[in-house]
């Protein structure tokens, strides 16, 4: 019950932004000086908190005799997967030659998949223990805060990261600000590898995202403070006024005119120029349709609608627009805009040809996104849809990678991509299955058979149950 209330608030408030090393703009430190006086067009450093993540050492590894879902809808039975130097080398059938020097893992009766990618998490910004001192996910002091960056709130010692790894096979995740605000700020994409600093977890080269939110949460949070927005029309008015301002700011930038440095406008201009991806919390079908029009009005693109409970009502529109729907299997009823949830939502969206993602928004459900996908898959099959297990795995790795702008690097087992790989001790769509081994960039970061390959955060050190199976 406590979780239901918290969940509904979080559901309303999630959006964050990820590291932006990918943009080609030259970096030049802006320092503290106002840029307005500059004669030349100012180039701001777009990556002032760069990733220091590095892959840990791995051994060339072959998993053989294993059922492989490649993450893009392909399947190999009795397959062989090879990875080395942090990258996928190849996947193939039983005849695939295993080069000398490879460690060989017997995958008989087991399944191998790309690591799970959760596009919607608040780990680190709403960490465990969930004490007030750790409540860093919503800058709920203004309805638009594009200037805040989730990475400045992430506590890397959140024990939730290790649970997502060990129980959920999660290898990458997007940490979003909450959904109290219409524009919540930038997200950050992380590799799920423990580090002393957030920079040490940042996914190298991932674009930033920007969290937006529709509906009940922003109007409730600000309406209750007696300020705009207090209605859905207020939501749109504030959004549009903000976009109009951003468009003017970007125009000045594009024309090389001097501008005062404005962190909020920098983020919004990044969205308008396509460098920053919009991750939009939005439940209701009619509101998603209006957001789509707003994105056309101001010339940006929504990468994914999150918590898209009513996506099934406009699945054709989402397919046509090329917008992903990130969905729970069966959360419903915790608030009015979650009332029309149906268990077939995932499958209906998939069948309409739209990009389908299973997401968590939750420190517990992130530990079993495979199970959530299995429920959505079963609901679709009960409707008579033909969806294979390997097709359904696209909801957990390739599609979220695509919506995060990292599908060229991870999300499937194509040669040359990051060796982010999970070996499951059975079919991952069975309730009786758990991760046995998880590799990130080819390094073995979790092994159910080896207690020494189980991360323990600083917070849990010396506490009851330290290093337990959890």
């Amino acid at each position, binding site marked *: *019950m*406590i*979780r*239901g*209330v918290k969940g*509904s608030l979080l559901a309303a408030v999630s959006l964050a932004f990820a590291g932006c090393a990918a943009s080609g703009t030259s970096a030049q430190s802006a320092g503290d000086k106002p840029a307005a006086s500059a004669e030349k067009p100012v180039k701001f450093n777009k990556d002032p908190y760069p990733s220091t993540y590095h892959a840990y050492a791995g051994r060339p590894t072959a998993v053989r005799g294993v059922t492989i879902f490649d993450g893009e809808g392909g399947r190999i039975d009795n397959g062989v997967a090879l990875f080395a130097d942090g990258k996928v080398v190849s996947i193939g059938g039983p005849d695939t030659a295993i080069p000398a020097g490879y460690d060989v893992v017997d995958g008989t009766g087991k399944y191998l998949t790309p690591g799970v990618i959760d596009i919607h998490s608040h780990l680190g910004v709403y960490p*465990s*223990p*969930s*004490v007030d001192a750790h409540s860093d996910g919503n800058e709920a002091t203004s309805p638009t805060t594009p200037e805040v960056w989730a990475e400045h709130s992430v506590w890397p010692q959140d*024990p*939730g990261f290790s*649970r997502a790894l060990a*129980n959920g096979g999660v290898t990458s995740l997007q940490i979003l600000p909450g959904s109290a605000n219409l524009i919540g700020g930038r997200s950050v994409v992380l590799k799920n590898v423990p580090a002393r600093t957030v920079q040490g977890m940042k996914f190298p080269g991932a674009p930033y995202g920007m969290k937006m939110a529709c509906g009940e949460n922003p109007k409730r949070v600000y309406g209750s403070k007696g300020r705009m927005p207090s209605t859905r029309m207020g939501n749109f008015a504030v959004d549009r006024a903000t976009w109009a301002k951003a468009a003017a700011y970007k125009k000045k930038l594009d024309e090389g005119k001097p501008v005062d440095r404005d962190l909020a406008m920098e983020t919004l201009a990044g969205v308008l120029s396509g460098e920053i991806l919009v991750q939009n919390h939005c439940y209701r079908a009619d509101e998603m349709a209006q957001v789509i029009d707003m994105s056309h009005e101001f010339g940006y693109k929504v990468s994914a609608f999150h918590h898209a409970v009513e996506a*099934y*009502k*406009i*699945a*054709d*529109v989402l397919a046509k627009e090329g917008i992903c729907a990130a969905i729970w299997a*069966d*959360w*419903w*009823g*915790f*608030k*009015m805009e979650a*009332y029309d949830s*149906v*268990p*077939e939502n995932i499958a*209906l969206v998939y069948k*309409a040809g739209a990009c389908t993602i299973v997401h968590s928004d939750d420190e*517990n459900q992130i*530990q*079993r996104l495979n*199970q959530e996908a*299995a*429920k959505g898959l*079963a609901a679709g*099959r*009960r*409707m008579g849809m033909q969806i294979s297990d390997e097709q359904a795995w696209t909801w957990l790795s390739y599609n979220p990678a695509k919506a995060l702008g990292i599908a060229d690097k991870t999300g499937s087992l194509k040669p040359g991509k990051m060796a982010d790989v999970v070996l499951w*001790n059975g079919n991952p*769509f*069975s*309730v*009786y*299955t*758990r991760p046995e081994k998880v590799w990130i960039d080819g390094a073995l970061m979790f092994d*159910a058979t080896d*207690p020494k390959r189980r991360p323990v955060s600083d*917070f*849990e050190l010396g*506490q*009851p*149950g330290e290093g*337990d*199976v*959890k």
Partner: protein
Amino acid sequence: MMRALLLSAAALIAAPVAAQDVAITNARLVIGDGSAPIEGGTVVVRGGKIVAAGAGVAVPAGIERVDAGGHWVTPGIVAAFSRVGLVEVDAVQGSNDRSARRSRFSAGIDIAPALNPMGSPVAVNRAAGVTRAIVAPGDSSGLFAGQGAVVDLGDDNDMVTRPRALQFIEFGEGGSSNAGGSRAATFLMFREQLLAARSYARNPATLAEWGSDALIQRADADALVRVINGTTPLFVRVDRAADILNVLKLKGEFPALKLVLVGATEGWLVAREIAAAKVPVLVSPLSDLPASFERLGATQSNAGRLEAAGVDVSVGVFDDDDAHKMGYTTQYAGNLVALTKLPGASGLSWDQAFAAITSAPARAVGMDGTIGSLRAGRVGDVVIWDNDPLELGSRPTAVWIDGKRQSLVTRQDRLRDRYATPQEGALPKAYDR
């Protein structure tokens, strides 16, 4: 418009049906008491009650026969700790009767009049195979939350199986905030309120003498008297190992208390003591994060370790949505079976796991003679599943409650069917039903 609404409402609500006598044959039969499934089993229901279940059970002449086709047949799931029937939409205050934080009453609150058997959560949970639920109130303004009920999820107008079936209280962090700010205050407040109730029981006039100084209202005192004498089980939310030990000690001063622990996140650290006290435990078993400082030891192995120590463990879904998603009960139980394959982890066998979501919660609330298994004499709550009931894709294909065949159609099914093709047709979607 009004006519359309009435019609669609009628389509959603099946007319109540009388209990039928029925024999379900050719079943992979699960009794629910922890015994292994029986192949080729039969269960016979007459007059709304189980008459017999097992292999080689004779089917009485003239009774309706349902061939289960070798599929799983089980007792209905018992939601061990929930708010089913108290909530339609959590964030819509008028539809949410979970808590009563501005009431002047506490222990005396009885949730029965707040239950809504027509609510869509009842139908959705029923379609997931949940036939009974232990329903507790949330917070009151005082230390005790009030009296919960055992309910059925049948599609009829009365869902109360046993009113005032439990009293609920939180110790630990939740309790201390209600008691004034510390655990010490919680234990003192608990003791003083029970002693006041005891004085009242001996001499009802004392309450009037106390006047505005009284710690409790008359209705609260009546309810607490039933707790002191063991008539009403006391469900206690408690998580920290040290708090659990202190709660167990309450039986020293109030020996007739029938304690049931709810949560017990760190129970595994004091499993021997809980077992020795013979106090049942309801766990939400997948809570494995140190969500607070009273849950530092959280692990999914809690249920398995408690069971191994001899504790009577039930599995529920309550550190999550506790009103809408009772269908998660089977999934959570299945996860405990998964742990038996994980090195170093403790889980439950399939048979134990299924008992933990049927007969064990029935026993915890003192009703295992009535609900929670297919043993003779229990209510006729029977489910036929399309597959292993703990597996993720499985669903009931038929459900009986009190021997009555149930509608499994939900509002969600109607929405799904309307939008199976999202495009509008010859007429708007509003005409499509």
